[in-house]
């Protein structure tokens, strides 16, 4: 309960600070600090959702081969936003940024929601390293692929791509760690980076060992995850091409909740995710553009899987998984205020084998999304999004049954404070 008040106190304190300090300055306070207040912004995201399934049933649906949360959290595991029917307060995001000194910059993004207060990002970057190098340290969103490094309000749709959520969860891969990046001194843009991360993602990676009757699995020694990325871009007239390759390789631990009857599976092993992304953006003039963006990702997992058998208790078997999916989206900005977009999500490979026997997991998990946006200014956005989701399944007597979901969401996203610049 107290946690709820913390962000409120923090926001009011910080936002009031410049005003208060300014007042002091005018009365001649020789110690006034107003000019050192960092860039502050607050982004509010809320929505109204209409869905043809009731919340309880929707939340219990699985993305087969990917979901592992308990019945009550499965929808939230894949999406942090627009989970409930009716009104949602998705988040209020408070961000602070400033130069620290000649050597460092600091960024922090606090994610405030009804669930509480989360540090989405809090990291420093170096300012002075030679030879095109930069180090980032703290908690940050991995630059894996195209979408993972972006905050939700930069997304072109109200939801993250399906394969992104399936591999990294609704919050994406935000981890504690360090990152070294290098920009090549070339005419074309080429950036190479390595991230060494704690590896607590939860969907594809994990560190916590577990004890089951007759089974003992140790914790993974941190850091447990290494990510390498290469990104390159060039312009051809008014067309900009950006392409990237990413690889994440780490240890995986999935521990069961022994209190939960439905929690009947555990896993310990390794996980590798590979991604390739391509963005093409054509500018017609200062206002209108057409962009095509696509990402392909594949994951291979290897290790020991433990299933709770009603008769024999926990049984261990070797598991190997190969899963792959992609999305392609087209977004057009037609006027200063109007944007339209469509996205196709598809997970086409869902091959998981236990002791050499292929599990009966459905493939061709698809989702179709269309959106229209009205942006009165850069600081406010209304988005109407329709989603036809054919990826979610119910498990009925051990058999997967597809549950098509129709969803309409009206999303409002509002920013105050510092002028956020738009990255490409």
């Amino acid at each position: 309960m107290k946690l709820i008040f913390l962000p409120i106190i923090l926001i009011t304190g910080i936002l009031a600070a410049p005003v208060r300090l300014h007042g002091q300055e005018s009365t001649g306070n020789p110690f006034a600090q107003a000019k050192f207040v960092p860039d502050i912004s607050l982004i509010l995201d809320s929505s109204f959702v209409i869905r043809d399934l009731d919340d309880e049933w929707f939340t219990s649906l699985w993305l087969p081969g990917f979901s592992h949360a308990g019945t009550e959290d499965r929808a939230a595991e894949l999406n942090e936003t627009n989970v409930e029917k009716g009104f949602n307060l998705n988040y209020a995001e408070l961000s602070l940024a400033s130069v620290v000194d000649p050597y460092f910059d600091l960024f922090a993004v606090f994610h405030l929601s009804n669930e509480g207060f989360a540090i989405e990002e809090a990291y420093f970057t170096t300012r002075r390293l030679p030879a095109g190098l930069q180090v980032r340290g703290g908690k940050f969103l991995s630059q894996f692929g195209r979408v993972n490094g972006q905050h939700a309000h930069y997304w072109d749709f109200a939801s993250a791509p399906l394969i992104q959520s399936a591999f990294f969860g609704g919050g994406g891969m935000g981890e504690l760690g360090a990152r070294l990046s290098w920009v090549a001194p070339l005419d074309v843009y080429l950036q190479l980076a390595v991230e060494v991360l704690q590896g607590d993602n939860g969907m594809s990676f994990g560190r916590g060992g577990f004890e089951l009757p007759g089974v003992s699995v140790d914790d993974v020694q941190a850091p447990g995850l290494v990510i390498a990325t290469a990104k390159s871009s060039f312009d051809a007239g008014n067309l900009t091409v950006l392409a990237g390759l990413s690889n994440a390789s780490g240890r995986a631990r999935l521990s069961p909740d022994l209190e939960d009857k439905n929690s009947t599976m555990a896993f310990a092993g390794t996980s590798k995710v590979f991604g390739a992304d391509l963005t093409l953006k054509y500018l017609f003039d200062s206002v209108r553009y057409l962009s095509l963006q696509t990402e392909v990702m594949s994951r291979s997992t290897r290790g020991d899987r433990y299933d709770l058998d009603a008769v024999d208790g926990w049984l261990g078997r070797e598991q190997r998984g190969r899963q792959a999916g992609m999305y392609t989206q087209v977004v057009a900005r037609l006027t200063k205020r109007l944007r339209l977009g469509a996205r196709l999500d598809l997970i086409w490979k869902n091959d998981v084998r236990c002791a050499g026997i292929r599990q009966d997991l459905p493939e061709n998990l698809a989702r179709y999304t269309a959106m229209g946006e009205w942006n009165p200014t850069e600081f406010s956005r209304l988005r109407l999004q329709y989603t036809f989701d054919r990826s979610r399944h119910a498990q009925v007597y051990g058999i997967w049954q597809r549950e098509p979901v129709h969803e309409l969401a009206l999303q409002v996203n509002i920013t105050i404070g510092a002028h956020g610049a738009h990255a490409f």
Partner: protein
Amino acid sequence: MNTRKLIVILAAFVLALPLLATKLQVVTTYPYIAGLVEHVGGERVTVHALAGGQWDPHTIMAKPSFIAKLRRADLLVINGAQLEIGWLPPLLSQANNPKVNVGSRGMMDLSRSVKLIDVPDSVSRAHGDIHPDGNPHYYLDPHNMLPLAEAIAAKLCELDGPGSTIYRKNLSDFQSKWKAKLAEWEKRLAGLKDALVIEYHKNYDYLLRRYGLRLLGTVELLPGIPPTSKHIQELEGKITESKVRFILQDIYNSDEASRHLAAKHGVPMIKLPHDVGAVREAEGVFSMFDEIVRRLTHE
């Protein structure tokens, strides 16, 4: 084994690349700045402008290729006064180039060399996407080009001492040519003194002030916010009351409302370049102002 060797050679080559470039590498945000740097820097510098003159300077698309340019820059010259706020900061932080970071010797803000007008007493976005430090379109007053060129010359001398004599010579050449031009433009625009004008965005205020033209209003409702029909009606009321000489329209905003006003009230709409490269004739800083004067005087 061979791959390892290849990687070493490749890495050595890539790391040695900056050593090959002996000229001072200057990157500017807008083309008019590149034009000034070319005049002052001459042969000793290589100049590259990030934004094209055909785009809206407030909302330049932050292309990753700009990061590559910033990565190798010895000097970055910006317009400042928050005109680049919407696109430059993330590019700079990704360029990993300490030479041109904010606060470094190689980062130059031209707005420091001129006096800004319309600095708001209080700022609120209820007044649109306002420029909190004052009107940043100061470079459209041709008189401001002199202090800008001087500041650029001083910076080039600071970063490249051996070239000082050349930079000073280039500067004085530029100054004398520019002063001659100022006299010519002054004469040609004298007839426009006290003329009433409407402009789309407050792009040309410095120019209007310099030559004594008076601004009746803007076509856009508020900075960055397109006109409403009520706002257009109000403008039309003002137009019928007073004699408006022309409507100034930039090349990147929709000219629909301006054309409507022009057609309905018989007031000419003039499209003016806002930067070098905005129109075909504006090839450099000299020809940009020649073209502005030509279009204003219908010659």
